[in-house]
């Protein structure tokens, strides 16, 4: 799979960017500066970045309530992202969406569609439009393990496979739907076998391994662009933080989480890059420092931005 060193370092940078963004967002949330909810993507960075690195700008992703990472992986700017979740006019959605409904259309992100499973049919429809217009773009709806139990998901896979639509269904199995372990919510161990009932490939990869995710996505995207229809791509992942920032996590043992932290995808990928000579430790330190500075200035930008003017309260309801 042809991916050069610079691209690998960029994948690392985006993973660190997501991690630092989420740490900053959780901090702001716990101090009451972000209202509503923050659902951190910490632990799943390799999945979103691996997938989105295999996409073009014109390819569309559709996210979930946990989509800061998907947006950033697709190329959204952290300053406008942070402004959005602080409810500011300079945010991508002008403060109308917030953390759970954030979208950045100019990067090819239909954004967070926060009712679990609801992004699936929309991504299917966008893929239908691409097919009808003779365009070679693909759509990539993300969902968690819990989303695969929705009617949306099954209807969407059925329709997309029937019409051979250019969709890559990414199932990020982070093991929990809020507090419910997926093993208590479905009768199968390997969620990728659900692809069989739709006559499409079901591929399962290590969701902590960004290169494995990337390579599997490239293959699925190639199949989609070739007119051969959708793929179900399961990234075996883990949510290293709670369902939302500050969530008490009474449903899992601390030891389980601690064990998963040992496989944190960011230091793992950093070691791979350094050991294989892709980038030196110093270069990667410089990436880390630059990202941290970018997040600091994103937070400053967001805090300094004005809230939407009350006179604009009913804007954008109708076109």
């Amino acid at each position: 799979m042809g991916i050069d060193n610079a691209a690998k370092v960029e994948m690392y940078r985006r993973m660190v960017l997501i991690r630092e963004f989420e740490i900053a967002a959780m901090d702001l949330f716990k101090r009451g500066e972000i209202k509503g909810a923050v659902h951190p993507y910490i632990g799943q960075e390799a999945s979103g970045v691996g997938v989105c690195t295999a996409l073009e700008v014109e390819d569309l992703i559709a996210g979930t309530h946990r989509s800061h990472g998907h947006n950033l992986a697709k190329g959204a700017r952290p300053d406008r992202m942070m402004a959005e979740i602080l409810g500011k006019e300079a945010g991508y959605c002008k403060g109308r969406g917030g953390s759970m409904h954030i979208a950045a259309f100019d990067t090819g992100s239909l954004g967070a569609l926060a009712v679990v499973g609801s992004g699936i049919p929309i991504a299917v429809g966008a893929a239908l439009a691409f097919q009808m217009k003779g365009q070679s773009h693909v759509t990539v709806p993300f969902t968690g393990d819990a989303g695969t139990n929705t009617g949306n998901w099954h209807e969407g896979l059925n329709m997309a496979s029937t019409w051979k639509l250019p969709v890559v269904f990414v199932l990020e199995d982070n093991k929990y739907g809020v507090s419910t372990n997926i093993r208590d919510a479905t009768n199968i161990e390997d969620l990728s076998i659900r692809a069989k009932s739709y006559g499409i490939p079901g591929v399962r990869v290590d969701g902590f391994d960004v290169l494995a995710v990337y390579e599997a996505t490239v293959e699925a995207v190639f199949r989609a662009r070739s007119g051969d229809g959708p793929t179900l791509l399961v990234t075996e992942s883990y949510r290293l933080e709670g369902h939302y920032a500050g969530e008490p996590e009474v449903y899992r043992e601390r030891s389980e989480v601690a064990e998963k932290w040992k496989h944190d995808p960011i230091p793992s990928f950093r070691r791979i890059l350094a050991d294989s000579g892709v980038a030196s430790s110093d270069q990667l330190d410089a990436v880390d420092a630059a990202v941290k500075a970018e997040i600091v200035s994103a937070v400053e930008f967001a805090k300094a931005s004005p809230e939407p003017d009350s006179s604009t309260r009913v804007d954008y309801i109708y076109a």
Partner: protein
Amino acid sequence: MTTIEKDATSLGSTTPVMTPDLINQVGSGVPSHELSYQEAIREALREEMVRDESVFLLGEDIGVHGGAFGVTRTLFDQFGPERVRNTPISENTIVGAATGAALVGMRPVAEIMFVDFSGLAMDQIANQAAKLRFMTGGQCSVPWVLRMPQGGGAGKSTAAQHSQSLEVWYAHIPGLKVVFPSTPYDAKGLMKAAIRDDNPVIFLEQKFLYSFRGSVPDEDYVLPLSECDVKRTGSDVTVVASGYMVWHAMLAAEILAGEGIDVEVVDVRTVSPLDEDTIGASVRKTGRAVLVAEACRSYGPTGEWGMVVMEHAFDYLQAPIVRVAGRDSPIPFANSIEAGVWPDSQDIVKAVRGVME
């Protein structure tokens, strides 16, 4: 507000026969042709599909079969399976797919076989399509039309899961427009407007009206999506109605004219956004309001229209507002008990006489 309670046992076979000349919307001398309500919708779809290649249809059995009520019949032959697209029975994904296609430049017209089935699609309608433009700060728009046959009609006997009138489900959701035409002329002009509009439009088709005939102009025309239409002018009492009830109101007005009562009929052909000004102006003129809907009485359209009258014409009222509405009941199957569920022209006549006393 007071309410006319229907006595089902007294209705019997009094359901009046409708004639097309009750409503004439095309002036004499204007080149026109006659269509049924069903044909008018089809003609609008056909013309818009010819005019704009981004318009396509999707829904259950809309292809060769032509849809449950035949509205899309022959369109499959003309436009083929890509643009007249049969879907699996997946209401939520039919609507969601329409939304996704609309986001990237298409103008889908989706069909849900009966409005009663639209509960299966409610997330995609109410949470997604209606809100996407707003919650993304105007980054997108969702230009689709969702066609849904609704309501009942004497002798149709489609019962509780195939006969409801659900316009208020959708009128309650900001971001949606809700259209409910009563005539072939309105159906064609509103469908063309709905397809060209950049918002998600719920297009409700009264099933009993499919066979109703009327004239439509030969030339292209589009009706506004935000106006009530005064179907008959009068000076004594305003009857506000929509869908099939407009015909009952027009027939009642004919009967009452014979008694010297001059009825104005306001057709709420766009349920939402509601044209409050036309209702208000009419009642300020007549001083009396009778509100008629096929939908269930409680929390139904008549309650909303009544408050519009209160807000726009309270000081002009010469009698209490009266509503004539469907019973708060599931729709039964047997003719003998189905007949009493919906209002008809006789109920309207009685209500108008009441407010004139």
